[in-house]
């Protein structure tokens, strides 16, 4: 324990002496979350859609008004499907909504009306978003009409319930938190450990009474402290700038984030056991962790849209589970039992990665 404290002190000294590197460690995620958080929005505003109202009766007009009522859509009524398609092709509208002639009578008889939604899928993100907004508007409309069912045309996304405005930050902020923590923790540990290797200080450390585990824990704790500061900064931003709700417990949120950080630190440790230079460690951390975390965690691209084999890989992404837990805590205030399996998986991942790394950490060389 005494040795451990000495080691931690040695790690912290240069960090606290060099305010530049410390501020980079804390300011970089800050800048990143602000930039990406503001840029990466999938919301749509005043999107042009063509409406081909074949019914032209009270209910259909009401529906169109409802569509235009929000700031999401600008409806352009057309008189033929040809005209609508021309607008779609010339990129004047992003979607076509076709209302069947028997719309009103079906509504009045509490029957299922027929609606057709054609989406321009050149940009799938926008298309999916339009689909989701449309879904929300229609749901509202039918509920107000006192109808007992939801339109079959569009399936209902459960998340919508907790994110009725379909704010994209609700999806991206948890993703951002996971990417930034992964970057800081894994990159910092892997580079710091490989530096000892590269500078030859690791060999000197090995020829001492220090145990390997003390070296590792001594490396991890200072960066865990930095991560804790980062978690605080990111959460404050999430709650203030991005107006993320916090439905569940803050303590739980922080504890889970710490677990995720530990997992990322273990990954950094694993990378360092396999890389001989700081450059390699940095490249592997960026390309091998950052990219997959961004792309495969469900942060930007929905996992359910991925091919099966890629979906299989997403199970190995700690961020996938962490994002899920974050959403549960921040948006839903679900009971712990709802995401206990995810916590279990993260914990298991951390233990397995640490075990492999310790096994790979050579104290004698061949």
């Amino acid at each position, binding site marked *: 324990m*005494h*040795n451990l404290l*000495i*080691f931690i002190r*040695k790690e912290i*000294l*240069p960090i606290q*002496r*060099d305010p530049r590197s410390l501020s980079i460690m804390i300011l970089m995620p800050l800048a990143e979350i602000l930039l990406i958080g503001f840029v990466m929005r999938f919301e749509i505003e005043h999107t042009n859609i063509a409406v081909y109202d074949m019914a032209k009766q009270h209910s259909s007009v009401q529906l169109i008004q409802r569509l235009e009522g929000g700031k999401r859509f600008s409806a352009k009524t057309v008189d033929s499907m040809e005209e609508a398609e021309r607008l779609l092709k010339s990129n004047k509208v992003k979607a076509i909504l076709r209302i069947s002639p028997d719309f009103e009578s079906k509504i009045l008889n509490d029957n299922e009306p027929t609606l057709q939604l054609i989406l321009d899928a050149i940009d799938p993100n926008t298309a999916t978003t339009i689909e989701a907004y449309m879904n929300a508007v229609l749901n509202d409309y039918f509920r107000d009409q006192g109808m007992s069912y939801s339109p079959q045309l569009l399936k209902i996304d459960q998340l919508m319930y907790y994110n009725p405005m379909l704010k994209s930050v609700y999806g991206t902020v948890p993703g951002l938190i996971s990417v930034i923590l992964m970057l800081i923790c894994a990159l910092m540990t892997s580079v710091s450990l490989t530096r000892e290797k590269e*500078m*030859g*200080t690791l*060999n*000197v*450390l*090995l*020829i*001492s*009474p*220090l145990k390997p585990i003390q070296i590792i824990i001594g490396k991890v704790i200072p960066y865990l402290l930095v991560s804790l500061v980062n978690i605080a900064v990111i959460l404050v931003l999430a709650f203030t700038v991005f107006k993320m709700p916090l439905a569940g417990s803050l303590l739980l949120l922080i504890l889970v984030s710490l677990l995720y950080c530990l997992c990322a630190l273990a990954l950094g440790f694993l990378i360092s056991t396999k890389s001989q230079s700081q450059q390699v460690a940095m490249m592997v951390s960026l390309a091998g962790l950052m990219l997959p975390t961004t792309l495969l965690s469900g942060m930007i691209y929905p996992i359910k849209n991925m091919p099966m084999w890629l979906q299989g890989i997403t199970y190995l992404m700690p961020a996938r589970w962490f994002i899920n837990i974050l959403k549960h805590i921040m948006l839903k205030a679900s009971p712990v039992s709802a995401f206990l399996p995810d916590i279990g998986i993260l914990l298991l991942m951390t233990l397995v990665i640490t075990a492999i790394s310790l096994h790979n950490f050579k104290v*004698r*060389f*061949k």
Partner: protein
Amino acid sequence: MQPFIKADEITKTYGQTLALDRVSFEVNQNEIFGFIGPDGAGKSTLFQIMTTLLIPDSGSGSINELDIAKNYKEIRSIIGYMPGRFSLYQDLTVAENLKFYANIFGTTIKANYELIKNIYDLLEPFSKRKAGDLSGGMKQKLALCCALIHQPKALFLDEPTTGVDPVSRTEFWDNLTQIKHLGIPIVVSTPYMDEAIRCDRVALIHKGRILKMDTPQKIIAEFSATVLSLSNIDKHQAREAIKNLEGIESIFAFGDSLHITVSKDNSSIIDNLRSTLSSIIPDYKLSEITPDFEDCFLQLMKEEQNV
């Protein structure tokens, strides 16, 4: 008395390259034992094996009767090791580095200050400077202090004077002699032949093999040939002219001159040499010199290659 440090038939290969070939040696307490050899001779590999960092292919070794394979953990807490490259924390200050290395061995600078006093007095004015900003000689002195501060039972110094100016090198060797007198045996390696004379015993090592092992004085005394220095010449031209003469054992370039080794019984060889030279380089200068350590080493290397 058992030798304090012992190595027996240590062999190590890297792929196809034989780095160490059945190396055996013994070091007693109160002894500075030097490994002298050019870069790539296998010195660092041997040091890493003796300090338990590297596992040899075969052979065994012990330090203070602790086996380098079985008792590597115990060995690690009783030896001081200074790797070939400067390996302290560049972003920590001189004092912080020293304190760190004292503390991880469970001791303090104060407790063992006597041990490093002579060396550290020179470093004291720079104690708040970052280790990375020190000069080469200062860095080596600091590294030596860090290797000494836990009062090790043996010191392994891998090329401690490489890249250090001649004055600092002399000071450094003075320090080693003081440490030796405290009863700490020192195993040291160097590519500088002139440092051999500062060791109590040396092993000449080349391509992973020990060519000769003895006191430096004995190695020079046993040198069974005459060394002639040939100067005021065009080195290439002279070498071409004399290289095939009978009785010439080796020719090595030393700065502006050539050192020519001939066998002891040599009056006819030297006459022959003089007549050959005067026909092509009239104003050459030829004189017999006392062989130094480098001549011995080069001669031994040459013999080794001829075997």
